[in-house]
């Protein structure tokens, strides 16, 4: 079981990095957000310095990579469904969940690399964060990404069509992003949005991330976010493994 999961993880990672241009582009996006969006936020931030803006925006940028980077990773599965390689693995003695788990694990590795890069840039730009807070932020981000990656593989196996899949993701992306306070903190929102926000799991992740960046470790948002995303990650990963079963007996 573990051997097959590791085999698939390694195989997927080698595929991912066989052309390093694409992962590089993937890493550029969050950096560009930091460089180009954080300054825009400056006027809205209490304190009004770039560092204050970054402290507020960096956790949001990290969750954004975690969710939206991983949500698109299922596209690969649709191609493999079509070219028959998924079927080929399904007839092999491979432990079937490993086929999906390997991909989810690959997304985690890519995510951590991207996160480290974003953190390095944020730190260079003047943000300071404690070691424990840093580890917790990374863990939270991994849980968020795990959820999104599992969801994406499940969506791909259920929708089985690139066009339908991208429309579905786009439909959910904007409300999730705005209602999660990713771009603009939800504190600026009208009452009805503030009422809706707690139903958006991302909101909790971003709140917890901001608390960690501020060094407020006792904030209840942190355990809430971890609980929410661990449950969601387990559910979405299980769903994606079940969806695979639909493809092959």
């Amino acid at each position, binding site marked *: 079981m573990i051997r097959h999961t590791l085999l698939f993880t390694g195989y997927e990672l080698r595929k991912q990095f066989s052309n390093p241009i694409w992962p590089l582009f993937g890493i550029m996006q969050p950096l560009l957000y930091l460089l180009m969006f954080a300054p825009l936020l400056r006027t809205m931030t209490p304190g009004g310095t770039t560092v204050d803006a970054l402290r507020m925006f960096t956790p949001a940028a990290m969750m954004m990579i975690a969710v939206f980077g991983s949500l698109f990773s299922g596209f690969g599965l649709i191609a493999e469904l079509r*070219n028959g390689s998924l079927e*080929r693995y*399904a007839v*092999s*003695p491979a432990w079937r969940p490993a086929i999906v788990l390997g991909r989810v694990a690959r997304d985690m590795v890519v995510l951590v690399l991207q996160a480290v890069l974003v953190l390095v840039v944020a730190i260079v730009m003047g943000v300071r964060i404690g070691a424990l807070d840093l580890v917790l932020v990374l863990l939270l981000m991994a849980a968020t990404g795990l959820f999104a990656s599992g969801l994406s593989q499940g969506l791909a196996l259920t929708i089985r069509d690139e066009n339908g899949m991208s429309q579905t993701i786009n439909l959910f992306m904007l409300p999730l992003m705005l209602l999660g306070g990713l771009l603009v903190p939800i504190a600026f929102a009208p009452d009805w949005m503030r009422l809706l926000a707690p139903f958006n799991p991302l909101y909790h992740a971003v709140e917890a991330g901001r608390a960690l960046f501020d060094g407020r470790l006792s904030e209840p948002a942190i355990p809430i976010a971890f609980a929410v995303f661990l449950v969601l990650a387990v559910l979405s990963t299980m769903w994606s493994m079940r969806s695979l079963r639909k493809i*092959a*007996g």
Partner: protein
Amino acid sequence: MIIQAHGLRKTFTTRSRKGVQTVEAVRGVGLDVEKGEIFGVLGPNGAGKTTTIRMLATLITPDAGTAVIAGHDLLKEPAAVRRHLGYVSQAGGVEDTASARAQIMMAARIHGVADPGRATAEALDRFGLTELADRPGRTLSGGQKRRVAIALGLVHGPPLLFLDEPTTGLDPQNRANLWDRIRQLRESGTSVLLSTHYLDEADALCDRLMIVDHGRVVAEGTPADLKREVSGDVITLRTDQPGRAAETVKALARETRVDDDLLRVYVDDGEHTLPGLLRALEEQGVSLTSIALDRSTLDDVFLAKTGRTLRDAGAAA
């Protein structure tokens, strides 16, 4: 016996806006494949060939029926069945970004091959892929991809290989090349279950075959036996009066079949029947546009069993 299957059935239900539709893809198919033989499943598109193979490959669960593959029960021990199988689907299963070498190596590792590096090199060499081994899958031509697909199915040296329409979409040269490689499998002792809608392919490759139509087996045997059953030769006449011509030659033929202005006359010995047949037609004043004498083909078998030619059946599907 490497495959013994009986009474396999599969019905698909699809729900759409038009309501629930059921398609009986396979209605009671049985087959026995001997160790080391190439067994063909011949039939038009939509006959249930792929569904049958997918059931035997543990990809879909049959609604009814039993099968024992390489000594293991299909329904009770699917994992054991998978260990003894090589499966090459119609799509082929060649990935776009990874190289042929990486994909074959991965397949070898998943199957727990003792020395995956060596097995990969051998598979590449055997299918003439060494030169292309490090190119991404998407840059390969159709024929090259097919060879990679079969190498992927064979790298772990399975005793049984499933090939679902292996030459569909290939040009004649690549087809002939692939046929040679499939024949070589017989020499190495691998049993092959092959589906095809090409008559010449079934005729050229298979030791035995079954003809399927609408999810049922309509005939089974060696290509030679099947053709002998229909008759030795077929005389095809083109005429304005096919009905009258059929009446005239009836006494000389085993069977006649009219299809628009074509009359097919099935006879045991074409060379010796032809002069008498022409004389009889002339006496009756039937004028002919053309005449041809051929050995009967599997298409004639299909026609005799189903009342349609494979070509018509394929166009209708």
